[in-house]
């Protein structure tokens, strides 16, 4: 099914016009009076640091990539140069964040690109299973997912979702087992084919193109805030470095900050049972709508006084960027417009759709609370509450995790035999 091209500038404009009419000058004046952007931005970056995954954990995952590549080289007899494993998704776009449940693992999406005729000549299933088979009998657990193999090391804080892929030029569009979404010409050079296991088909995909798109949109977002000290752009996040890019982001990376904070906000609402964990808005939708939004804002010449104002307007605008073709919600993949990220929204009693709009309402309310707060203390308290960072203030002098009150009483004799629960 082809998806209509969505005019985001038009949608953003109409959202902006409506905002001016409904909220009017009263609310804006309250916001402006108390905004102290120079104080809020560091706080939000502080939250951002708090929700980041520690460098050493990411390091460990990086080493694991190499191991996986070596295993595939050894078992499949394809030359090393024809196997490339690199991060994709949030891990490669600097939007990877920590789960609010401290004991939950984080996942690093990786794509395993194979450029060798032997790999794909027998069709998608054979290719998918070859990779899975090669990962068997190793010192990690492997689990088959829809389009990837989940590799999990015991005792490690992460798992890797490894998606087997082949270069786009290697599969013909005319084969009968392909599902192709036309690639946006700006990003088409990185397109690949992945396997959709349940339907045994090749699906076109473009994780690297999507990353480049986020990166370009992040560039757009740097022009949206009126700032006297807009320094030269820090393009570190755009480094093509593989392993996993540095998850640190700079003060001008407004889009990346927004994506990470909004995803964290969603995760906290799930943890507080205000959003369903099964039907919560998926990251790619949040990312896409935010990216489209900043792009449209730049195109429409918007300027905001502070990051809080930008975040607040983003939260108010993204629900309005969901285009409806009749009753069908449409959020096109920006790098392959034929693909609709909202294609499951009408399933399951519309719970995914309801959940998305429920979440944006919660987000708007929370950010409004932040915008009208009048002093540093309450601002900090609100930020900590809405992003679930209560333990954030001081550098931890007590180790995080574990219960410091659960240690033995010093000097008490040790118990070598149990003396509880005996009868």
């Amino acid at each position, binding site marked *: 099914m082809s998806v209509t091209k969505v005019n985001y500038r038009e949608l953003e404009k109409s959202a902006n016009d409506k905002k001016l009419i409904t909220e009017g000058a009263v609310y804006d004046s309250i916001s402006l009076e108390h905004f102290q952007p120079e104080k809020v931005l560091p706080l939000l970056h502080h939250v951002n640091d708090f929700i980041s995954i520690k460098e050493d954990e990411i390091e460990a995952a990086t080493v694991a990539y190499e191991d996986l590549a070596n295993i595939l080289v050894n078992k499949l007899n394809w030359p090393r140069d024809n196997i490339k494993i690199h991060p994709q998704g949030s891990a490669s776009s600097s939007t990877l964040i920590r789960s609010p*449940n*401290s004991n939950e693992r984080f996942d690093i999406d990786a794509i395993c690109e194979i450029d060798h005729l032997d790999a794909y000549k027998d069709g998608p299933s054979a290719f998918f299973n070859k990779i899975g088979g090669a990962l068997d009998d190793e010192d990690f657990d492997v689990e088959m997912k829809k389009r990837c193999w989940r590799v999990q090391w015991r005792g490690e804080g992460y798992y890797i979702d490894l998606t087997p892929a082949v270069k786009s030029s290697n599969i013909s569009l005319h084969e009968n087992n392909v599902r192709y979404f036309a690639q946006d010409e700006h990003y088409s050079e990185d397109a690949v084919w992945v396997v959709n296991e349940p339907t045994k088909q090749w699906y076109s995909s473009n994780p690297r193109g999507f990353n480049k798109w986020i990166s370009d949109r992040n560039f757009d977002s740097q022009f949206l805030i009126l700032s006297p000290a807009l320094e030269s752009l820090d393009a570190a996040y755009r480094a093509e470095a593989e392993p996993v890019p540095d998850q640190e982001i700079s003060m001008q990376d407004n889009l990346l900050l927004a994506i990470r904070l909004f995803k964290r906000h969603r995760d906290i609402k*799930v*943890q*507080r*049972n*205000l*959003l*369903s*964990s099964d039907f919560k808005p998926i990251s790619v939708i949040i990312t896409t709508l935010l990216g489209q939004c900043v792009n449209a804002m730049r195109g429409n010449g918007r300027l905001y006084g502070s990051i809080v104002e930008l975040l607040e307007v983003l939260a108010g605008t993204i629900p309005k960027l969901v285009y409806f073709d009749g009753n069908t919600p449409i959020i096109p993949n920006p790098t392959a417009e034929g693909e609709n990220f909202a294609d499951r929204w009408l399933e*399951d*009693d519309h*719970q995914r759709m*309801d*959940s998305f709009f*429920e979440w944006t309402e919660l987000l708007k309310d929370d950010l409004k609370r932040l915008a009208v707060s009048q002093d540093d*203390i309450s601002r*900090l*308290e609100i930020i900590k509450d809405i992003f679930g960072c*209560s*333990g*954030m*203030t*001081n550098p*931890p*002098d*007590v180790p*995080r995790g574990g*219960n*410091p*009150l*659960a*240690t*033995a*009483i*010093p*000097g*008490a*004799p040790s118990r070598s035999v149990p003396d509880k629960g005996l009868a």
Partner: protein
Amino acid sequence: MTERLKIPSDVAEWCDSSPWLVWEDRGTSLEKSVLSVPIRHPELSRGRDILGRPRLIIPLSHRHERPYVKLDDIAILKVPHIDEQGKLCLFKDEEELDYFSRTEQLSKILKRFIDIFIPAWEGGHLDQHFYDEPENYWHVYVQLYPVKKMRKRANLTAYLLSRRGKKSLRYDSYYLENLGFLCSTQTNFKTRFLSSIKSTRYKCSVFEVPIFSAFLPSDYPTSLDQLKAICRAAAGAKETQRFFHGGKPNVAKLVVFRSPTCDYGYYLPAESKLKVINPIVCERADPDWLFGRYQEFNLKSYEKSKIALIGAGSLGSHILHILAHSGIGEIHLIDSDIFMPANIGRHMLGVTSLGKAKAIQLSTLIGRDIPSCEIIPLYESVQSWLKRTDISKFDLIVDVTGERTVREVLAAKRIVQHVPLITAWMEPYITAAHVAIFHDQISWHVDGLNLWHEAHAFTGWPEDYLLSEPGCSSRFSPYTTDQLSFAAGITAEECLLALTHSPMNYVKIKSWVRGEEYSKNQKHAAERRDWAILPKNIDAAIITRQF
């Protein structure tokens, strides 16, 4: 200040010299017999400064009562590790304090409070600890919840008879005045549970909603809107609408949020027209929790197991008790005996059952207390039961009659209808007890051996070891209940194993054998077989043999 309580001088001296205590502001409670001394702690930042004025509480009358730190009520449910009285739990194992003198205790408590608790609290490192014991805090919340609007009912606890599922459930159930709410979709279990509890009952409608995570106390829903918002997120808007606005208007409603670690009940009385929501405590009561407490080894539950237990005598009644309490789902109990006074000393039943059929009485009494087990009494002879029953529908037949004729008719029946069989019996004075486990094997004759004879640990008991009831020809074997429990224990253990383990291609005989010290002290003696000879200092052993 006049002090009517006597403060030990070492305590007074220690407190007075501590830089963290404000000795001059101390107080005493004559009624509780405690001394309370304010604690001076490092200053906390705004937002964290909600401890009130912490006090060190020192009991004065009883040495075994431990001192503790008490925070003001304002801190309850805002600071983790404190109970509904404001008592702060500073140690994983408070009992360890008992090793120390009073002043050493005070020193350790204060040190832990100042050096560990205060920095951890100030740094926000304790905040997530609410997630570690969500049930404790929910109990505190329910206990402190203002009850003025509530129609006072003694029992406001919800008993959850099924495990947390993945989907939300809406159903009708009952509130029992003598117990609380009964929540289950499993009709049989619920029906038996209901008939076990004698009580006036009222209809209620229940909405069981699985939620993703336990609540922090600050996130407990406190209004109907919040309650609905959580229902909507987890169960969808339609289901939520149907529950709150569908159904009969005069029926109370109960919402149960089921997180992986804690269940939360909200009771909405019918008469309040949804204006009042009352938090209530939930208790898990599903069979997997009752009988295994979700222990890993018990994941294979016996809920679906079906056993025929032949014999409701002393051994049979004790085995039934253990099997029912182990979570077996269905037991058919076959026995044609009447309960007599002579049985009282070693049977599960007592005087209320005199003159009544043992099978029926046991099923009523044990079935009432363990409603997860459906006990079907069959007050008839084994022969007549076997004649009309397809025994292959059982997972296991257990014969504890000790009668040769029963063994024979069972063997004949098992030729045509396959089912594993366990036969258990005891030797005189319970000098030994035996459990024979047959899977595919039918006959008691294996490789020219008569297993019945081989099984025994002793031979040559004198004719008169059986006792006669005075003036009556009825005879019985002499043993006592304490000894009987060993035999019942190993038999029940084998029954449970047989339900979960794969079949064996041999007959296994497990024997409980007492040592010489025990057997020689009985009134009669018999000859001990070689395999049953135990080393001198061994009083009993469980010996397993294969045939």
